[in-house]
């Protein structure tokens, strides 16, 4: 079995070759080439051909035919050609959607979840309570040029008036699609089924291509995103892709439907979380945006933080977090005015890379803040359903829990996957690990891994046609295990004992020690090793078994090892600059971050 997979990103098209050798799927070669979706080429397949040509050169197999298409081999015994070609795409800015619902926190949020889960970028969410006046909403709808609109609202048998009202705002506003002027704007209705006839009437013959699917919130107690997500994928292929240059050809080439890149990443993470029964957070920090994925208790969520990124949006990260927040992670002397100008220079020349250590330290400080802010947004979005009736008994008299609690629980988190330039191209793995720890503040035992060459999108599509291959490649080649973060929840007292650890393997103690509040320590534990780690936290500190209770867990080694973090959660840094710098410097030193 030989599979060629490509991901047509907005700037580069990445191709990988996956081969089955001795019954095991491995990723063997990779190649890349600039994406060719815009003028002067305006044909995405050129870039694909170029990237696959690189695979061909590296592997020695002939993969590209003389006419530029990908060769399929007739039998698995042939030397040349591949058996399958799959692709994802985020070229041309990805799939951009506008969603609408009745209440922002309820059906509109479900609609947003459906769109984000399908891999779209949500340009705006229209709801009857979004604090905009109807004419302002109309103005906004007219300004946007989405690829697709998803309208939801009302439970089945519930509100029809406001759903129709929103439809009545969208119809006269006539949003124009991004590509092609004669093209009908695809509009998916996934709301109250009683409103369907009215919706059909409103959008008939108005330049809309209406399709109706099951309500994504049949009752407030239940969210049913499947049909809406699938329809988004279908519409993406039928309407949006068909109008992007060269995609008609690409769709013919591919053996599986072309997926939006983030949708595919979400799919692979869901597959992994389900397969290993764990909670996962994945992040892809890009130049302009940061994508955050999580699977907690089997529930998948994705958010796109549109203006948190490391190049195009770097200035926005600094503005949103504040320069003080960024500089708290920096142990070196830096001039703020100079830094501000540098940030802006990076923004206008986004392709540059840090040359000096100082520049790297600063860029990694910015990335911590970008990740932290994106995670805050993610936590706020990934919640239990809102608007649910609570059945109370006398037992609840003391704690009346609210609906809409965040699903994200750092203590329950098992695996963090880092990807994106600043994380995966950091010169030292320790830097990636520490950036993740500082930004996400994981609690208890958390494994940290990075996506070696951003293979997750390819594997996401692969999972839809060959889940075994996707899982195997993911575990063996996609993930680079960095190690573990072991940190107690609770406030620590500086200098006072925080917890004790013992790492054993088959009865032999490999490492033992104690950490005091505010300390960090790295215990090297090489890739391929495994052992049992027992931790005894002090009173008031929780490692996952409850405050003050010892806990032990199997751990695997990684290229960094085990990071013990006794800084306490929530993470607090000293207030004065001098103390803070000393602290940060101590941590950097003990983790051998910058050597």
């Amino acid at each position, binding site marked *: 079995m030989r599979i060629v997979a490509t991901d047509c990103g907005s700037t580069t098209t990445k191709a990988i070759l996956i081969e089955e050798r001795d019954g095991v799927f491995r990723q063997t070669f990779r190649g890349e080439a600039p994406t060719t979706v815009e003028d002067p080429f305006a044909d995405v397949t050129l870039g694909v051909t170029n990237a696959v040509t690189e695979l061909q050169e590296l592997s020695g197999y002939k993969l590209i035919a003389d006419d530029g298409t990908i060769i399929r081999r007739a039998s698995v015994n042939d030397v040349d050609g591949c058996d399958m070609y799959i692709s994802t795409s985020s070229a041309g800015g990805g799939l951009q959607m506008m969603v609408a619902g009745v209440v922002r926190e309820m059906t509109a949020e479900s609609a947003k979840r459906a769109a984000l889960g399908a891999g779209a970028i949500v340009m705006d969410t229209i709801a009857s309570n979004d604090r905009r006046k109807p004419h302002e909403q109309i103005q906004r709808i007219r300004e946007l040029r989405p690829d697709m609109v998803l309208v939801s609202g009302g439970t089945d048998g519930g509100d029809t008036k406001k759903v129709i009202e929103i439809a009545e705002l969208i119809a006269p506003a006539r949003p124009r699609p991004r590509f092609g002027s004669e093209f009908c704007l695809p509009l998916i209705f996934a709301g109250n089924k009683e409103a369907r006839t009215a919706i059909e009437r409103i959008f008939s013959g108005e330049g809309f291509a209406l399709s109706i699917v099951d309500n994504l919130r049949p009752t407030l107690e239940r969210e049913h995103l499947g049909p809406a997500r699938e329809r988004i994928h279908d519409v993406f292929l039928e309407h949006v892709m068909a109008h992007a240059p060269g995609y008609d050809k690409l769709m013919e080439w591919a053996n599986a439907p072309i997926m939006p890149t983030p949708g595919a990443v979400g799919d692979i993470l869901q597959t992994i979380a389900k397969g290993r029964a764990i909670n996962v957070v994945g992040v892809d920090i890009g130049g302009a945006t940061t994508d955050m994925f999580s699977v907690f208790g089997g529930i998948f969520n994705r958010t796109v933080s549109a203006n948190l990124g490391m190049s195009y949006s770097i200035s926005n990260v600094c503005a949103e977090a504040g320069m003080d927040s960024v500089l708290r992670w920096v142990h070196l002397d830096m001039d703020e005015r100079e830094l501000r100008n540098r940030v802006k220079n990076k923004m206008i020349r986004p392709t540059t890379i840090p040359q000096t250590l100082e520049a790297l330290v600063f860029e990694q400080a910015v990335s911590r803040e970008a990740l932290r802010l994106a995670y805050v947004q993610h936590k706020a979005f990934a919640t239990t359903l809102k608007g649910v009736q609570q059945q*109370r*008994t*006398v*037992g609840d*008299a*003391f704690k009346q829990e609210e609906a809409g609690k965040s699903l994200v629980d750092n203590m329950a988190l098992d695996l963090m996957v880092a990807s994106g330039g600043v994380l995966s191209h950091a010169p030292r793995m320790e830097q990636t690990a520490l950036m993740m720890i500082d930004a996400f503040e994981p609690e208890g035992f958390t494994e940290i891994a990075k996506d070696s060459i951003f293979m997750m999108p390819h594997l996401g599509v692969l999972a839809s046609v060959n889940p075994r291959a996707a899982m195997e490649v993911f575990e063996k080649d996609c993930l680079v295990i960095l190690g573990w973060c072991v940190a107690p929840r609770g406030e620590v007292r500086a200098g006072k004992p925080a917890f004790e650890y013992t790492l054993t393997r088959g009865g032999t103690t490999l490492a033992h020690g104690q950490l005091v509040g505010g300390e960090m320590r790295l215990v090297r534990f090489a890739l391929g090793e495994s052992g049992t780690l027992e931790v005894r936290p002090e009173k008031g500190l929780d490692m996952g078994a409850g405050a003050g209770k010892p806990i032990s867990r199997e751990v695997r080694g990684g290229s960094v090892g085990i990071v013990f973090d006794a800084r306490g959660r929530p993470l607090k840094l000293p207030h004065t600059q001098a103390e803070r710098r000393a602290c940060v410097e101590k941590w950097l030193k003990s983790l051998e971050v910058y050597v």
Partner: protein
Amino acid sequence: MRRMVPMWIAIIAGFAMLLSAFFPMTESLGETFGDVFNVVAAIAFILGAGSLAKVNLAKVSRRDPGWGFAVVTLICFTITIVVGLGKFGVPQNPQFAALPWSGEKEAEGGAFAWIYAYALVPITATMFALLAFYVASAAFRAFRAKNLEAILLLSTAFIILLGRTFAGVVLTGWLPDWASGLRLENLSVYIMQVFNTAGNRAIIIGIALGVSATSLRILLGIDRSWMGSGD
């Protein structure tokens, strides 16, 4: 302006009432404001009746579903007003026998009193009787031994329930005298007197403080939300 005037009325009246409780010379001021309130409430009653009439008339006018009930309401409303104001069947007040209509409208033997005694009271009693059913249904649903607190509450409730019935006496009557405190009837009294009272008072103290702070906020004009939110 629209907010300042009511705010100042509230502030002045509130302070007057407060002062009159402690300072004897301001007593009459407090009484005056009390009277003013009654007058305002009485006038507001006209608005209330007006609202009632308007809503029901509109219902009839639009032939809304169930408009027949609105007609019944309006008829009863009119009858009661006429009967009450006209003092039908009200015997003369013996003290002022010479004056027509001197009897109290609620006086025994009058039509109004009849409506009260033979229509309102039974209907009210019916509604009240529903309560027994609701207590049972609420208790049935709410008392689930889900966690430790619930179990504690449930067992306490059980003791009280048994202690208040003969079952309690029968069940634990065999306990010797030195352990009589453990008899269900005594236990239930003890729980009510000690735990219940203590808990209740804690709530009452909290409420009292809450009331004073709320009043103070209104008196100081810090809390204006009772006049509608926003500024």
